[in-house]
């Protein structure tokens, strides 16, 4: 019995495509790294413009010296109750500062990045917001980035 082959047959089931890998190699130990945070959890400073809950591809530059009280969250896509109690749940800036003081990492980056993930204009995120944030990290000499909200 031979295999049945139908030319041009396509499945009607949607099969998402995983993009090709990207990979930046790690070239130094953690103790020599300047580390930045980037979060899709909608974190920003209290004095910065809030995100538009209907979808927002803009991002906020968050100075490392910001205190927990100076930070807040605007994001309608997940339960904010924990992060409202303690911003470190999604943006562990105090933990990162402690790890820098302890010598686990060399230092915190001067600026971190907050944006509102979970939808919105994906094309803008991919082609504008992402590259803009990456460029800021490159300019400030960041060695590694810890992201949250995956």
């Amino acid at each position, binding site marked *: 019995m031979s295999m049945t082959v139908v030319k041009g047959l396509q499945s009607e089931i949607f099969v998402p495509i995983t993009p090709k890998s990207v990979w930046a190699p790690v070239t130094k130990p953690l103790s020599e790294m300047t580390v930045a945070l980037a979060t899709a959890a909608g974190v920003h400073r209290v004095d910065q413009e809030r995100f538009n809950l209907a979808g927002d591809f803009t991002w906020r530059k968050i100075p490392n010296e910001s205190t927990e009280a100076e930070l807040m969250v605007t994001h309608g896509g997940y339960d904010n109750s*924990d992060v409202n109690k303690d911003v470190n749940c999604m943006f562990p800036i105090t933990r990162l500062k402690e790890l820098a003081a302890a010598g686990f990492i060399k230092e915190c980056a001067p600026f971190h990045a907050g944006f509102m993930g979970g939808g919105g204009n994906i094309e803008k995120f991919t082609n504008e917001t992402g590259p803009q*944030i990456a460029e800021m990290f490159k300019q400030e000499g960041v060695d590694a980035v810890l992201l949250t909200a995956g």
Partner: protein
Amino acid sequence: MQRAIEEVGIPTVIIAALPPVVRQAGTPRAAAPIVPMGANAGAPNDIAMQTEIVKASLNLLEEIETPGKIVSLPFEYHAVI
């Protein structure tokens, strides 16, 4: 976002509450503690848990050698909603 940062040559690791989603999005390195969407880095005001999750996630920068690897972390927090 993670991919955009990697593309300029900066290594990254993401803390993921939803590992299948980051896998689909093509993550290079991910840490997967058992946490909800609203508390990726651990329970609110639990400094010990947050510190361990952040440290273990950063350690993956040195440990993961192949793109697309997602490593489970032995921490668990369930939000009471």
